[in-house]
């Protein structure tokens, strides 16, 4: 007899419908699986055999053929255990009168019949919903992930037996109730700007960078507090909107590092070590094309501590995603595009000995050594970093001062307001922040007065800025103006923006 169930597989962040067909024929007992299944899928035979028997059903002792269609798509992972098991039961007349055609089945089976959680359920549900599927049976552990999508019925099951009972109508599973999204008010970040003493210039730069989503480079001697400043970034990052949160959660769902909440409510802050390879950064891997660090940092911050220590190839690979906000990874099994719109925050020393520009300690580096050290970060990459700021060693007096510095919470409230302005500004465009503006948007939203143009022109001549820096300066100036609640960019905003680009001009 023939039976058919529906399931989905993932291709990047997109779910692709897979039909599982099972045919049972007379003949010597055998289990054949066709349709470009990888090892994990092929091994499902043993799990299904035990799971069916341990759920009080009979595994047919005849010839079974399972086809996963369309045959041209590679199937990976253990999500097909449940649809195959159900189609085997249906084909062997153990689910008489049960209609499985409405359901999308997803789940990995344990030998005792229990359902294990899967990765990538959220992107599958979103894709399936857009393709018209309305009923889903998923492992119970994935229920939270599914609870943010409305207009669908998701039945979380703990075991194969529960699925059988639900489908036959003996014990219907209550569908997951839809939760409304609320961004995490209490940030999990233990760092707070109020603990960072001094560094007023750097703090201001941090605020601007986070407000407008600008890339940031912190330059300073060892022990100045670059890393500490960077670690405070999550504490001042604005809340994510639901759309942003969904984008982030999809990526993290595919990567398999979703927490219990089922949705990511705080902006990601990724800190890959400098031994990270290009694949770790951009995505790829031996088992499918996994999202890399830059995609995991989507809508959040990618922090590269001691930037010159990263391999050249790794750093250069960031250039294209920094411009486009997406990364396309090409591998033998296909080419997959992941979103990668992140804020880059990097830190580095000013010179090999680290003391250049320090008031107290003596720098032993020659200009050539300094130049060589800086050259480890290529011009085009430096050009994409809107804000470059020097963090200097904290003076002892500052360190022990009792006057509390401004707390992250109050900085964050300003950031939120600036973001609000940007959201209203870009309501019609599909961007969120000033840093994502293209030439066209700059022309619309950033008209410059004569005086501003004059300052820009002069600063280019005097400070030897690259021509590409112009639009980036204007974007930063726009953010500074937003923080000021100013409608138009005024000369002070431009000058402040220019002051954050001087590192490259030296």
């Amino acid at each position, binding site marked *: 007899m023939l039976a058919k169930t529906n399931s989905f597989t993932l291709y990047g962040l997109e779910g692709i419908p897979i039909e599982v067909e099972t045919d049972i024929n007379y003949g010597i007992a055998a289990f054949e699986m066709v349709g470009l299944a990888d090892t994990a899928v092929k091994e499902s035979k043993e799990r299904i055999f035990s799971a069916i028997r341990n759920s009080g059903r009979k595994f047919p002792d005849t010839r079974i053929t399972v086809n996963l269609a369309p045959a041209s798509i590679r199937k990976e992972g253990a999500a097909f255990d449940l649809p195959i098991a159900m189609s085997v039961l249906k084909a062997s007349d153990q689910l008489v009168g049960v209609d499985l055609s409405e359901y999308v089945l997803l789940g990995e089976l344990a030998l005792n019949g229990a359902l294990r959680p899967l990765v990538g359920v959220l992107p599958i549900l979103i894709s399936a919903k857009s393709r018209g599927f309305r009923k889903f049976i998923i492992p119970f552990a994935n229920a939270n992930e599914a609870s943010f999508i409305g207009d669908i019925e998701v039945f979380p099951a703990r075991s194969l037996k529960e699925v059988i009972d639900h489908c036959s109508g003996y014990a219907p599973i209550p569908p997951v109730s839809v939760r409304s999204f609320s961004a995490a008010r209490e940030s999990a970040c233990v760092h707070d700007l109020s603990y960072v003493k001094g560094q007023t210039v750097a703090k201001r730069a941090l605020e601007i960078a986070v407000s407008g989503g600008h890339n940031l480079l912190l330059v300073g001697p060892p022990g100045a507090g670059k890393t500490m400043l960077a670690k405070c970034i999550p504490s001042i990052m604005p809340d994510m909107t639901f759309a942003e949160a969904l984008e982030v959660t999809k990526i993290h769902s595919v990567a398999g590092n979703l927490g219990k909440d089922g949705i990511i409510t705080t902006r990601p802050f990724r800190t890959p070590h400098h031994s990270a390879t290009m694949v770790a950064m951009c995505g790829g891997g031996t088992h499918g094309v996994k999202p890399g660090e830059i995609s995991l940092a989507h809508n959040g911050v990618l922090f590269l501590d001691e930037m010159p220590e990263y391999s050249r190839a790794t750093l250069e690979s960031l250039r294209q995603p920094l411009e486009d906000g997406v990364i396309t990874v090409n591998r033998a099994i296909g080419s997959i595009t992941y979103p990668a719109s992140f804020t880059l925050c990097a830190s580095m020393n000013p010179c090999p000995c680290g003391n250049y520009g320090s008031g107290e300690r003596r720098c032993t580096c020659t200009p050539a050594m300094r130049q060589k050290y800086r050259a480890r970060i290529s011009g085009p990459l430096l050009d994409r970093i809107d804000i470059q700021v020097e963090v200097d060693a904290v003076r002892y007096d500052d360190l022990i001062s009792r006057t509390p510095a401004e707390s992250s919470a109050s900085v964050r409230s300003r950031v939120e307001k600036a973001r609000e302005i940007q959201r209203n500004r870009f309501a019609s465009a599909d961007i969120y922040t000033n840093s994502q503006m293209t030439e066209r948007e700059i022309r619309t939203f950033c008209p410059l007065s004569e005086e501003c143009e004059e300052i820009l022109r002069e600063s280019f001549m005097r400070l030897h800025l690259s021509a590409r820096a112009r639009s980036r300066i204007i974007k930063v100036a726009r953010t500074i103006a937003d923080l000021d609640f100013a409608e138009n960019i005024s000369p002070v905003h431009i000058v402040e923006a*220019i002051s954050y680009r001087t590192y490259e001009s030296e």
Partner: protein
Amino acid sequence: MMHYSDEEIFYIWLDGFSRFTATDKNTLLQKVEFLSDFSFGAEYFFGADVTPEQRENYADLQAFLADEAAMRNLPQIFTADNVFCIPKIHHAYPPILRQEPDAPLVLYCLGNADLLQSDKFAVIGSRRIPPAMEKLTESVAYDLTERYAVVTGMADGGDTAALQGAAQGNKVICILPCGIDTALDKEQVQTAAAHGLVISPFPYGQSAMKYCYVKRNTVIAALSEGILLVAADEGSGTLSTVREAILRKKRLFAFPYAPGVAAGKACNQLIKNGAALCECAEDVFSAMDAPEKGDADFSSLADPKSDFGTENRKENRTNTEILQKNNAKDLSEEQKTVLEVLTTYGESHIIEITQRTGLNEQQTLIALSMLEIKQLAVRCGGNRFAPNVSNKR
């Protein structure tokens, strides 16, 4: 294109012939009067105890002189690179250098040869130099070109700043510590040649060994009428030039530094020992015009009416004053306040400036950036700023 006499070609060949030791070369040059002298045997030059090696080298020399084609072709190597050679016997060879006991046999030159005839003044400094002093060096070097060709090396920092300043006046003489063809920074050589003259006292193929720097420094010291030391720590290699200059009784000048600034220790030491303090090119001009003082005479300053000579030397005002006067009209109130604090206290951290001006940090930062754009302040790294005391903008 330059034409060389046979004798000059002989000099060029001898200079490039590295198998002869310097002593042997001197022996040869002392005894030879005409090229025809080389028809004599090796014993004529080296005496009876001539070594087989000397004999062999001498044979090579004779062979070269006999081979007319080889002689004619030798200068072509240099003409191809636009390099012209000035042998010691050439009339353009600076007489002051010719007096030196171990003067280079040949000067390999690239650029404007006329500069050799002009008055020369050296501006030198070590590689570690504070950014503000770098700017000052550049502007003083430029101002010096009004009267002098500025002699300098090609190292990073002080030398490069002097080179860039003087290049704008098209009167830079740059002395290389290696052959012209082996110079590492080819671009810099071309710049210097386009805006002045590049001289190498070394034959082609000579790489920059340690002893070459010493010889280069000697040439700088010997060529120049005076020397301005813009930056040097104690024990800096730049001081070898200063030592050579002292031996030759050249006039010494140095930039003043604040106490404790490592990059200026040797400069201050030099001033303590009698070198003239230099803040602008005018300081050099007036000191070079005046006869050298024996013991300093401060009696005129004892007069209570004395203005310490500042009024009489109007031209000699420090550039800071000129700069403040010229630019004050374009500045906002905040910028003026910040500039005043900068010029009063010198290099300071942005927080110090904030405290002294009473402005908030953001205002200070904006004012400083504006001053930087207007070339009135210099960023020294680590959020430190200094007034730009150079008058070039």
